[in-house]
């Protein structure tokens, strides 16, 4: 194991024209010192910090606003995280990644059009459901259930 070994996740926004397989091929071209794993959302790259940073820098050039990167604690295929040995189910961290992946196209749009004026301030804020309304909904629903 390299002492300064680091692992990074490269996640593609849904709106990106790049495919994970293209990213993986480019990553393999760039270096032979790193372990590259292709995934449904992008890549996992493991290697020395310098190598990984260089690969990420080059990969970002393919789609600067559509490629997102974050650190990952565990290396790819680690038995403490890998679903293959944990008997299935989502791996820890999946739900967070899934939730943020859904808004990546908007963030990507935001990065592209960062300096365009917007009218967000004038908009009404989404209101939360009040407790009294929630009670009403429960009562209406329970009446419906009783009536069949």
């Amino acid at each position: 194991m390299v002492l300064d070994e680091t692992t990074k996740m490269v996640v593609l926004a849904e709106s990106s024209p790049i495919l994970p397989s293209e990213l993986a091929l480019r990553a393999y071209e760039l270096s032979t010192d790193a372990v590259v794993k292709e995934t449904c959302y992008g890549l996992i790259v493991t290697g020395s910090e310098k190598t990984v940073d260089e690969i990420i820098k080059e990969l970002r050039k393919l789609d600067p606003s559509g490629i997102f990167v974050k650190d990952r604690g565990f290396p790819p295929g680690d038995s403490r995280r890998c679903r293959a040995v944990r008997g299935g189910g989502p791996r820890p961290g999946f739900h967070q990644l899934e939730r943020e992946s859904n808004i990546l196209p908007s963030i990507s749009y935001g990065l592209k059009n960062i300096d365009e004026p917007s009218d967000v301030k004038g908009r009404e804020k989404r209101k939360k459901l009040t407790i009294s309304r929630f009670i009403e909904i429960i009562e209406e629903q329970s009446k419906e259930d009783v009536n069949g």
Partner: protein
Amino acid sequence: MAKILVYPSNSLILADLVARFGHEPLTLMRVIRRKIKEVGIDSPPINVTPEDPKRGLKYAAVDVPSGVRGRMALLDPLIEEAEAAIIVHEADYSFGCMGCARTNELAKYIIRKKDIPRLELAYPTDDDEAREFVRKIRDFCKSLTSTAEVIA
């Protein structure tokens, strides 16, 4: 380059944007990596060192659930190192058991009490809000760069 604590501390979007705008994101993943790589620490779940309970007790009393203190032990190095913070509210996946909920409240409270520049936002729900979200983070990162230059 400032060390910016992001909250939720494993956020992909925040970690990426902070790094993109020239600063170092402080995320939970680096603490986890240290935990699993450091020589002498066993594999989870038996990787609690004698230092960890002490770290947790810095923030919460002994009668507070161990889940809160355990989580705070992981967040402690990040809070200690932070020179600035970005907090995002209404993160769906932060919702969880009482341990998660109370840790979220406590961590945010401690970050607010720390005398560091802070940006608080909500997750965007559409393109326009996302643009505003990205712009606010960019401006915040820029302001940190200019402050650092003045101090230097």
